């Protein structure tokens, strides 16, 4: 097979050389790496995108998330709301949100996490302007109950980040929340 020479940054090439030493020959290892880069490109992504995604998935697992078919979560929310009561359910969602607010510690990181983990949310935007934060969240899949619960989740998360709810508009699949920085934070 005809071969060409590839130039690579010395420190990285040395690292690859080290790794290859535990995995077989350098030539085979480099071929494999380059093939995977092409495979990623064919998926329309960069290797960095894929590794970032895998890292987020690992973080999700470490944070106690599991992947569940969405129908189960939606139906369970409806059943539980009737069984436990909407107020109690809202309190649980709020408390769960608080945990995530503390976990991510920053509105932008929270926005990234919601975008990454809540695949059923078609649009989410958390924008900060001075001491105010506006949250917009849209999903065509949410029921009325689920939308209310999810808004409580977001409220809890923002509250943990030091913001108090000043205005809310919640209707099926649409959440618009406004917050102000709490004076005691």
């Amino acid at each position, binding site marked *: *097979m*005809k*071969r*060409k*020479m*590839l*130039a*690579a*940054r*010395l*420190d*990285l*090439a*040395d*690292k*690859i050389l080290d790794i290859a030493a535990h*995995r077989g020959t*350098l*030539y085979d290892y*480099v*071929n*494999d*790496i*380059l*093939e*995977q*880069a*092409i*495979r*990623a490109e064919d998926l329309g992504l960069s*290797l*960095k995108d*894929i*590794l970032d995604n*895998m890292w987020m*998935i690992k973080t*999700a*697992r470490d944070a*106690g*998330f*599991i*992947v*569940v*078919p*969405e*129908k*189960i*979560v939606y*139906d*369970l*929310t409806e*059943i*539980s709301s009737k*069984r*436990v009561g909407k107020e109690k359910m809202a309190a*649980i969602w709020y408390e*769960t949100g608080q945990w995530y607010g503390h976990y991510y510690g920053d509105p932008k990181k929270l926005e990234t996490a919601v975008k990454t*983990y*809540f*695949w059923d949310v078609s649009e989410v935007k958390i924008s900060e302007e001075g001491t105010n934060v506006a949250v917009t969240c849209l999903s065509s899949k949410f029921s009325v109950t689920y939308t209310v619960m999810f808004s409580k989740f977001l409220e809890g998360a923002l509250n943990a980040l030091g913001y108090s709810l000043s205005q809310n508009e919640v209707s099926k699949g649409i959440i618009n929340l406004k917050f102000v920085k709490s004076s005691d934070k």
Partner: protein
Amino acid sequence: MPEPDLKKQKLIRAPNYLVDRLSEDASRQGKTLYSYVSEIFEQAARANEMKRSLKEILDIFEILEVPREAGAIYAHKDFLDYLLQKTFSEQGEELQRLWYHTGKWYGTYLGERFEKPLEIFLRLLQEGRWDLSEVTMNRDKGIVEFRCVSAFASQERSLLLQSFMEGALHSLGYRTQEKKCFKGIIRLKFSV
């Protein structure tokens, strides 16, 4: 981009066809081949730090795209367990039916989408964040046996996962021969 310092680079041999393809990709992205290759090596080193090869990471990534396409979402296990604990005693049968039917839909989806749906289902259980520490599947003369272990799954969640698995396998043409479930340990045997 500044010209790389020749003293700070190393030449590595690779097949023509790969170098040509990478050159095309790099120029399409407006990068030099040198910087593109450096990026690739950087990610390979990162994968190694995650104790995986790039191939393994791409394989897992492709598998994990399935739940996203099939309409699954992340839920916190404590939250899910709380809801199940509150509802299972009165609505356990309805929940089991719900999980079973969702499993059936999932199995049908995998059957339509993949040539080897059973293998994909196994990978999904292994990699799909069901909170399982061990998932094995044995196939022998038309018999398929699953064993799943989780140290943390409640009895309610284990029973529901069992229903989900049964639903998926039934839609793939298997019949339940035997099932056992005890707090995070699920054993299911199916025949064609």
